[in-house]
């Protein structure tokens, strides 16, 4: 199973967790040379509630599309953190927004705390790019995709008017992550 790298993005509906998952998968499989599968869970019918997206990255074909042992998980809300942290594997990473998550789950994983949403607000004036910052952080922290790939993936998914903003957000993510390493 070591050829699988499993990432889970979690938060609440509207925080762009699914988009983050998609971008990560594209970074790996379209702009990188790996295979990737992205999946997600939904609230009632198709909206609302806690939301999660998972990405499996591998150099092999990927059969089972859901997380089995998570290498890296992002939690943007307390609810998501509590609900979804259980599958993080020994030695994995749990990255939480430190303003949102106050009760930390126990486990043999590395717990990294960072005020992601607040950084987006303070440094870029837009909380909407918090998910992009976190993508930068995860790319940096895990090395599972290259900076180049994740940047291409991000830029291909955002409207032209927001290219610069997102580039910056990503950059901030790369840098802030270094401080956590």
């Amino acid at each position, binding site marked *: 199973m070591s050829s699988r790298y499993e990432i889970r993005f979690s938060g609440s509906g509207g925080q762009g967790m699914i988009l983050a998952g*998609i971008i990560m*998968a*594209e970074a790996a*499989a*379209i702009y990188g040379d790996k*295979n*990737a*599968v*992205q*999946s*997600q*869970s*939904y*609230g*009632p*019918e*198709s909206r609302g509630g806690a939301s999660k997206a998972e990405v499996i990255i591998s150099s092999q074909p*990927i*059969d*089972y*599309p*859901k997380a*089995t042992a998570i290498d890296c998980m992002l939690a943007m809300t307390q609810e998501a953190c509590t609900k979804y942290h259980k599958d993080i594997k020994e030695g994995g990473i749990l990255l939480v927004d430190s303003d949102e998550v106050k009760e930390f789950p126990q486990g043999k994983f590395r717990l990294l705390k960072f005020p992601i949403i607040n950084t987006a607000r303070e440094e870029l004036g837009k909380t909407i790019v918090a998910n992009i910052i976190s993508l930068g952080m995860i790319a940096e922290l895990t090395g599972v995709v290259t900076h180049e790939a994740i940047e291409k993936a991000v830029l291909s998914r955002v409207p032209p008017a927001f290219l610069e903003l997102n580039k910056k957000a990503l950059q901030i993510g790369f840098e802030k992550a270094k401080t956590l390493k």
Partner: protein
Amino acid sequence: MAEKKKKLLQGNEACVEGALYAGCRFYAGYPITPSTEIAEGMSVRLPKLGGKFIQMEDEIASMAAIIGASLAGLKTLTATSGPGFSLKQEAIGYACLAEIPCVVINVMRGGPSTGYPTGPSQADIMQAKWGTHGDHPAISVTPAYVQEILTETVRAFNLAEKYRTPVVVLYDEIVGHMREPITMPAPGEIEVVDRAKVTCKPEEYFPYDDKYEVAPLAPFGTGYRFHVTGLNHKQDGFPTNDPKIIRENNERIMRKIENHKEDIWKNEETFLDDAEVAVFTIGSTARSARYAVNEARKAGIKAGLLRPLTIWPFPDRAVAELAKKVKAIIVPELNLGQMVLEVERCSRGATKVEGIHRVDGEPITPAQILEVIRKYK
């Protein structure tokens, strides 16, 4: 190669690509989770290609509209999920008897009833065969990978045209909503079967001409004026009470599928040559199974996988043969026991058949399957 762009697509998006590739130019539907992305995709894409999209007032009307549009000569699609699939049943039966090609996607969600709309299931498998009243032919294809949703949707259209019958594409919410990189096929790369052309003179045309096993269907408005009905009918399409003709026609629509099972069947076999225990399953569950079988092999267990991409007509021969070779056939499915009944029937007591059933909105994991495989090592 430069042209063949890889794209990360959702299963339901791949379905749209497959339909358009196959030449589908008409979509009628009514939204329902977890199939709605297909409607949304078709609503954007079809008009660019000169095709038509219409959101009908319900699923019954949608099914009726695609049958009508097919009679007008287009390749037609509708997509739905459990509750909508139930509602479409009457009209699906109409398409079977009147022999109107069309494709129905059912993205299976947790059930019964409203159930668990965002959860996956594989609990409409038997319904895909038996959902409408009366004896009727059934073809259902069952992709498990995003790329395969594209190719199987194309195959569904091909089978629909070839056999003049509705074809159901069945996959679960997991496969419908996950994203994988896929390679878009170039034009001509995948076979596309178009509707048989009618060449005879109008006065010689019979829509159910008994010269053919499957007579060609002339589109309305092309000079072949004929009659179509859901009543039992003669080769000229008009209703009849003649027992002989009723029987012959009812049997023929079954036979046209039965006689061509070889053409319609499609099985993927993994490690079956020397397998001592086999897994039989479809869709997302087959993905888990393949994972589990790989793990089993690593652990030295001779496990194999029979994955049907056509579940109806049921791959009876493949199962019967397999049953004679293995100690057990394991049937994992996201339901409380459907395919397993057919596997039991076809294996005629020749092997142990064991189902793994799960209906809690979660996938069957590789570990669950592996555990059962180990019992038979």
